[in-house]
């Protein structure tokens, strides 16, 4: 199996999906002729023609609105929003339309579409190329939210998303596009080729939306993570020497509650990590869920390490980013049961 970066895996998923199903169409800003600013759709237009992959005007609401109309017709659009930070103009079409079309028409019309968007920071992108808006999707009934953390999952999840009969938000943590970034920005980047999860099978395979994955087994503390933070948590576990079980959620809605609770029942401790702002982040839902379902097993409160409640800064990116130091400190606090109040 060839070692692929996450970008290559995503591109490959597009090729496989478009070969298998002529109803799959791909479009977005700079997606056609050029192949996308992150090159995730490179080669598609050349291979499949302008009728299957094309450039779109800079209008996110239009891109999603048009995709909904196409999906209602019977196509399976997979569109790109250039950065998750630019999804807001499309938010109405996503929330009020794609998410509710099946329900409000009692199944008469549906919106099987996939909306891809690069998310997260760590690329010195400042406040409009760094955001993690997953919680703005998880609150909305009728859409699924997916966040892969590695090439293997990215391909399998994207193929599942495109096949899914409902709208799927597919968030791509761009900091790990080219390597499994562990949060140590001052160290050289490991390329994907050195990582087992870059072994991406050729051809078709899917990963169920709604299934999490034990990224690292452990006994003392459960860490719930997704996207880039999976690798940061891994680094923190190694550096602290804490026997942490890291669960890569992969899909946030539907959530693999069983795997989460099984792990917390075993470890008795839980830390939730994400890059998005803390207040009302998806970590709140995870924390609430864990304490609701595993309260009597918990030996310490569920902790959260998140982005601060500020815009994502440019120069202070690494002070904002929940890196292995902050995650490690929180893991230690939870192990020491010294945690009172909020975890940093």
């Amino acid at each position, binding site marked *: 199996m060839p070692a692929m970066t996450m970008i290559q895996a995503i591109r490959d998923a597009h090729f496989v999906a478009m070969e298998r199903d002529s109803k799959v169409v791909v479009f977005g800003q700079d997606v056609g002729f050029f192949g996308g600013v992150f090159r995730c759709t490179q080669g598609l237009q050349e291979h499949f023609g302008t009728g299957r992959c094309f450039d779109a005007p800079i209008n996110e609401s239009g891109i999603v609105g048009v995709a909904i109309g196409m999906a209602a017709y019977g196509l399976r659009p997979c569109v790109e929003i250039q950065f998750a930070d630019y999804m807001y103009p499309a938010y109405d079409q996503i929330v009020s339309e794609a998410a509710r079309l099946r329900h409000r028409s009692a199944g008469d019309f549906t919106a099987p579409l996939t909306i891809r968007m690069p998310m997260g920071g760590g690329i010195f992108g400042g406040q409009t190329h760094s955001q993690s808006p997953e919680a703005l999707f998880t609150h909305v009934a009728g859409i699924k939210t997916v966040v892969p953390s590695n090439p293997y999952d990215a391909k399998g999840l994207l193929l599942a998303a495109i096949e899914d009969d409902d709208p799927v938000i597919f968030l791509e943590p761009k900091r790990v596009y080219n390597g499994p970034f562990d949060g140590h920005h001052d160290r050289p980047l490991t390329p994907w080729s050195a990582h087992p999860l870059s072994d991406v099978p050729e051809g078709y395979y899917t990963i169920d939306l709604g299934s999490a994955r034990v990224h690292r087994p452990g006994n003392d503390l459960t860490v719930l993570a997704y996207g880039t933070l999976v690798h940061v948590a891994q680094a923190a576990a190694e550096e602290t020497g804490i026997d942490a079980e890291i669960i890569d959620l992969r899909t946030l809605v*539907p959530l693999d509650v069983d795997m989460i609770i099984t792990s917390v029942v075993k470890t008795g401790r839980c830390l939730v990590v994400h890059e998005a702002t803390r207040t009302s982040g998806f970590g709140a839902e995870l924390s609430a869920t864990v304490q609701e379902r595993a309260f009597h097993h918990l030996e310490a409160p569920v902790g959260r390490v998140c982005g601060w409640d500020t815009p994502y800064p440019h120069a202070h990116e690494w002070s904002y980013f929940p890196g292995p130091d902050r995650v490690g400190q929180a893991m230690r606090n939870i192990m020491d049961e010294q945690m009172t109040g909020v975890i940093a």
Partner: protein
Amino acid sequence: MNDTSRQASVRLRIPEPTAHTDLVAAAGTRCVAIAGEARRPDLDENAISVASMRDHVIRVLDDEGNAVGPWAGALSRSELEAGLHDMMLVRSFDARMLRAHRQGKISFYMQCLGEEAIACASQWALKPGDMNFPTYRQQGLLVSSDYPMVDMMNQILSNTHDPLLGRQLPVMYSSKEHRFFSISGNLATQFVQAVGWAMAAALDGSDAVASAWIGEGASAESDFHSALVFASTYQAPVILNVVNNQWAISTPEDFARGAAATFADRGLGFGIPSLRVDGNDYLAVHAVTAWAAERARTGLGPTLIEWVTFRVGPHSTSDDPTGYRPDVAGQFPLGDPIDRLRQHMVTCGEWDDTRQTALQESVDQVVSKAFEEADSFGSVMRGDVSSAATMFDDVFATMPPHLVEQRAQFERSQRLQNEGS
């Protein structure tokens, strides 16, 4: 803050429409249409050339009921009768629903009084397979496509037979079979979806046409722009209908239109051939829609049509227009589309009072019968609804675990509640 040293001549223009006080005059000034005067552009005429007609409102029926000019002549006698029938059926339906509202049988309703010609004639000009993306004021599309009236009523009553299982507000119909896209409560969103549907049809090699609907007020929304951008860039086979009924709830059309002379002008800015049409003239609506559909079907791209009409009734049953405009009281400030078509048929010697009375009785009876049937299936006001647990269905194609669990919790709480009471 006010720096008086700078004596400015800038004063913000807040539109103060005369419509608030003299609505007939206000509407009249913007809608003078001389029947037969507007020419019929070639199908492939470009937007700028078509715009030479921008001072004209296309009208076929003159004041005496004659069909005149280049847009006249497409409909047979039986088609005219069908058109009259459809419009009268819509009006009778609206009247019955308003009565049901007054009787407390339904919670909410939206009529289209005075605007019946637009949806009815437009539907007549489309072909099977074409798809409408309507707003809440195009019930005529369903009526004209023979959608079972009892199902419309079931939806309005949210009763046990509501095809939408009580999920939607009354009048928010949906019927794929009848090419009527699910109505959204959010204005304008469907306008750009229609463009996407049309693009998909073209990509798919079909010659189906999408027909997008929006009110003049909602044309101020951003998705109106998105729709025009995509329709223009990809030359989508779509008809972009802007229904200018002069009002958006309490707000006169001036606020959405701004300094443009017409809503048709918006299309001009995108190179989309755009026409302005007397929306209360069944023949004009039919002819122009057919023209636009033909353009779309032959690969000539989108057409924008401003239908000039008048919202004769309140915005909805929740609205009382006396707070913002003079009482219309049975007037049709821009004409009654039903009466105009009837008069035309009389003028043509194909209609008379006897037939008119018979038709009225027949449509009223259809409506009565339908309502009797629908009423027999109960209503949400009386608690006759689909099973509440169905609200968990159709959130997704397959119910995910958290909804299975929530449904179980719901059922448990219902049980406890019933035991408690």
